């Protein structure tokens, strides 16, 4: 059985399920809103591990799982107090300890499941700054980067004539509006260029990520799967709306997106990086500058692949399903 860890509204998961449905292999989709209960974990005398888990009233053994795809989210184990809605009535110290116990059990579950044929890792596995350092250590070009809580440093950088951008250290900040209008709106932080900067007087700032603004020729979105790179060039630089962050999509006049062959040198370095990060899949963002630098921005272990698959005709959904069903 293929175990899929995903989210309720993830359309890419549906496309993979389409392909798995075309085989004889069973699948079990678990959304981030679902919770497992661990019924029994046994390390027996004969080296055999028996772990019975229960989901929505159905039990299965960890051995029933032949492969797993961590598309989005992580395992959430539920305990007896949560099932009975009794957690709030417990002493705070007890709650804290029980949570540690469950966290530890979830850690074991990740370890055991990921020792199966597993595609993807939990998002918490890596962070943007560590990845940048690992990339630089492998000879991959990265943007000049500053994480600072001191606005003077930002002012100084701008005074040197450097064009700079800011973005989140982790994921974009996304928030649903809380006004009373009928339509719920989403608010989001994209990558933004800093111009006309006024520093906060007498105020330390929460650490903020600042990078040089790259003079783009085009962007690359590269999907990595089974040791292969599937790359797409995005010509976002000529549209003011998308030039700093192509995710500010122009739906009326979309960016042109075409398949791209990575130079072998870049491909070898990226492969080395993915090995170091212990990732067998992920979406890599790069920029090719006008002076032909290939600059690495980040890798997302759970990145979107549909946006690469469809315009470039890579048929990645089928390839992922084949990986999971061992075809």
């Amino acid at each position, binding site marked *: 059985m293929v175990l899929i860890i995903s989210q309720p*509204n993830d359309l890419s998961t549906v496309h993979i399920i389409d392909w*798995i*449905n075309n085989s004889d292999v069973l699948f079990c989709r678990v959304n981030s809103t679902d919770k497992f209960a661990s019924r029994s974990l046994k390390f027996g005398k004969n080296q055999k591990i028996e772990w019975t888990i229960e989901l929505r009233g159905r039990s299965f053994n960890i051995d029933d799982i032949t492969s797993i795809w961590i598309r989005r989210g992580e395992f959430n184990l539920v305990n007896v107090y949560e099932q009975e809605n009794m957690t709030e009535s417990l002493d705070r110290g007890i709650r804290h300890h029980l949570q540690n116990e469950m966290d530890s059990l979830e850690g074991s579950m990740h370890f055991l499941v990921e020792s199966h044929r597993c595609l993807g890792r939990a998002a918490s596995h890596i962070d943007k700054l560590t990845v940048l350092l690992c990339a630089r250590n492998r000879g991959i070009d990265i943007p000049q980067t500053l994480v600072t809580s001191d606005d003077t440093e930002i002012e100084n950088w701008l005074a040197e004539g450097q064009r700079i951008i800011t973005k989140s250290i982790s994921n974009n900040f996304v928030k649903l509006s*809380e006004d009373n209008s009928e339509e719920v*709106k989403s*608010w989001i*932080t994209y990558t933004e260029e800093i111009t006309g900067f006024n520093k906060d007087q007498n105020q330390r700032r929460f650490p903020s990520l600042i990078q040089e603004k790259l003079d783009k020729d085009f962007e690359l979105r590269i999907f990595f799967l089974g040791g292969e790179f599937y790359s797409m060039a995005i010509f976002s630089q000529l549209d003011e709306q998308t030039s700093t962050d192509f995710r*500010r*999509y122009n739906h009326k006049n979309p960016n042109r997106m075409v398949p791209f062959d990575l130079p072998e040198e870049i491909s070898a370095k990226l492969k080395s990086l993915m090995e170091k990060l212990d990732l067998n899949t992920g979406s890599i963002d790069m920029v090719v500058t006008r002076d032909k630098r290939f600059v690495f921005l980040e890798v997302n272990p759970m990145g979107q692949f549909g946006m690469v698959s469809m315009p470039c005709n890579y048929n990645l959904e089928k390839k992922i399903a084949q990986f999971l069903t061992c075809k």
Partner: protein
Amino acid sequence: MKKKKKSSLDDIRNLKGAPLNYRFIREVESDPTARNIAKFAESTFHSTTKYRLTSMAKPISRLINHKNEPK
């Protein structure tokens, strides 16, 4: 306990000491077609585990005219 204040877009942009990118927070300019598909997917898959007998994938495939829809 003091009730937490709900933040407006301007509250977030002007929050003292916040990460610099908070100044630039924007409302998402969403694609109505994508939004409708996402809503449909969410309503279809809101709950639970789907075993292949109960897969609901095909209606969505038709919605987006998926050329490789399995039989």
